[in-house]
């Protein structure tokens, strides 16, 4: 009888986790390709001479024949699709054009600041979710108490404060009123490699990001845990004499992970976007400042590159999230369609 049920399952679905991961990778690369298409065609809609944006100001000094040769080189006389192909080929060769503002190759401009953004973003992400889990579980433990209600209300308020305003307030207080923290930059002049100096510069931007998001995710953890404590197994453990804190931390936390992992995956673009804004407010040299400045100066090569890099990072994190989801919860796997929403086809 069992074999009959086995045979009814779709034999074409792959069961192996490696297979699922590989499928995810292919999907991710395809998404990246589509993103590059969108970015390319969007950028082509922009006004301005593409020759200038590729070769810089030297274009003015060229003769007409040289300009023609360059046009043919860039494929500007060919169809848009051919141009896309050429641009893609350049991309794979690491040539992203020249930054109009900085007069340097885009890859160099990006490379010099990407690390700064990575540090700030990663720090913000970790510092958001660790306290979120802690405070959320603490509130769920004391559900309905004054502390719980007060913290929930504070969470709603802090989530609605624009990050740039919070940044301004913190600068006003911590830099102008009491000279405790620097108002901007990633490091003091000449101290690029000094760790304590870096940390000193990271405190305020990171604080803004954490305050912005910890409320939202802490509230989410708290609500998920509250629902979890309504389940029967919690009553069972309580009747067995296991202390409340241990039930919450050991059993309930694990069970809310399937709900939290999609949220943590969605948090990546949110926190990244927030990082970009905060960078601009604090003058922190990162991808965000680069993106906003290149928008102000119409430096499209840099803008395209930052968009692609950001998209690639987020798509990568999405794939990671999918792999994690499938690993911890069999219901999320590819071959588990029968556990998920009913298929109406």
């Amino acid at each position, binding site marked *: 009888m069992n074999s009959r049920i086995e045979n009814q399952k779709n034999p074409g679905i792959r069961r192996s986790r490696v297979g699922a991961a590989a499928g995810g990778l292919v999907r991710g690369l395809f998404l990246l390709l589509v993103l590059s298409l969108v970015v390319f065609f969007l950028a082509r809609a922009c*006004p301005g001479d593409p020759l200038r944006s590729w070769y810089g100001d030297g274009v003015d000094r060229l003769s007409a024949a040289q300009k023609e040769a360059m046009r043919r080189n860039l494929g500007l006389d060919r169809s848009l699709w051919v141009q896309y192909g050429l641009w893609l080929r350049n991309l794979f060769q690491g040539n992203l054009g020249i930054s109009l503002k900085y007069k340097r190759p885009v890859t160099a401009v990006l490379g010099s600041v990407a690390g700064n953004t990575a540090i700030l973003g990663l720090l913000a992400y970790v510092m958001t979710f660790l306290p979120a889990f802690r405070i959320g579980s603490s509130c769920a433990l004391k559900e309905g108490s004054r502390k719980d209600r007060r913290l929930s209300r504070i969470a709603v308020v802090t989530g609605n404060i*624009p990050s740039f305003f919070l940044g301004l307030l913190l600068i*006003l207080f911590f830099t102008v009123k009491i000279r405790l923290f620097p108002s901007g930059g990633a490091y003091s002049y000449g101290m690029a490699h000094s760790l304590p100096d870096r940390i000193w510069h990271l405190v305020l931007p990171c604080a803004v990001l954490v305050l912005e998001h910890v409320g939202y995710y802490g509230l989410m953890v708290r609500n998920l845990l509250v629902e979890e404590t309504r389940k029967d197994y919690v009553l069972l453990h309580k009747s067995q004499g296991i202390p409340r804190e241990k039930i919450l931390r050991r059993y309930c936390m694990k069970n809310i992970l399937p709900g939290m992992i999609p949220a943590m995956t969605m948090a990546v673009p949110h926190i*990244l976007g927030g990082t970009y804004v905060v960078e601009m407010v604090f003058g922190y040299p990162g991808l965000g400042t680069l993106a906003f400045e290149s928008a*102000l100066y119409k430096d499209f090569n840099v803008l395209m590159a930052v968009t692609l890099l*950001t998209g690639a990072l987020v798509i990568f994190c999405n794939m990671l999230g999918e792999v994690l989801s499938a690993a911890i919860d069999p219901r999320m796997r590819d071959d588990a369609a029968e556990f998920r929403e009913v298929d109406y086809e």
Partner: protein
Amino acid sequence: MNKKKNRLGPGVRLSIILLAVVGIASLLAPLLAPYGPNEMGPAINQAPSADHLFGTDSMGRDLLSRILYGGRASLCIGLMAAAISTGIAMVYGSLSGMSRRWVDRGLMGFADLMLSVPQILIVVFLQAIFGKSGYLSLALSIGVTGWMAMARIIRNEVRRIRETDYVTAARMMGGSFGYILRKHLLPGFLPAVLYAAVSSIGAAMMTEATLSFMGLGLPVAEVSWGGLLSDSRNALLSDSWWIILIPGIVLIGTLIAIAALGEQVRKGNTRLHSNL
């Protein structure tokens, strides 16, 4: 009958009053504002006084008037952007929900892709491309990048509604897509999407404020709350707290009021479906 459970809590009533005040004040800005929004007077960097209720900024402009006129821009753009993104989400989500599995998967995949890039980045990209800014172009930029989450909610609801008898009957009798959308799908998914729609107003206002703060939003001559906060960056050094705090509190208050309203909408909808 116990009317108590239908009465709105104090927080919600306060929010509605606040929003009404802000809305009406912004609407009547030309009548209420004591000075013009860009009118520069002799009093520079003055703290709130009888003459200027909210004080003046570094160029002698009255802050109260600027907040009133700025409210018009911020509220207008927020509402327009929310309307645009809700409209796109409705059509996109319904199309995706009503179509075949592979079309649905493709459409939702594209939506997921758009979700991958932080919204602020795409808006900045669009703003850089379509140079000149006005209320509409800014609202378009924000609206066109914020429909994805709502579209997903709508698509899930539509997939549920599509199997009901009345929709099947409508399709059999030759009802067009627009007809089914208007008569059957819309009333079906509206409760689910209302909370997201209200939240998107707040999110759009925050995005507009951020853009104006960066100098990528409205042109300098137009005043909006984000632009006011951008000017306040100079106030950091002149220790004029009112230039920073007052516009900020107005903006935050409005956003929290909208969020509270959204929460009330969600609670209201949940109560409707309760079986008790």
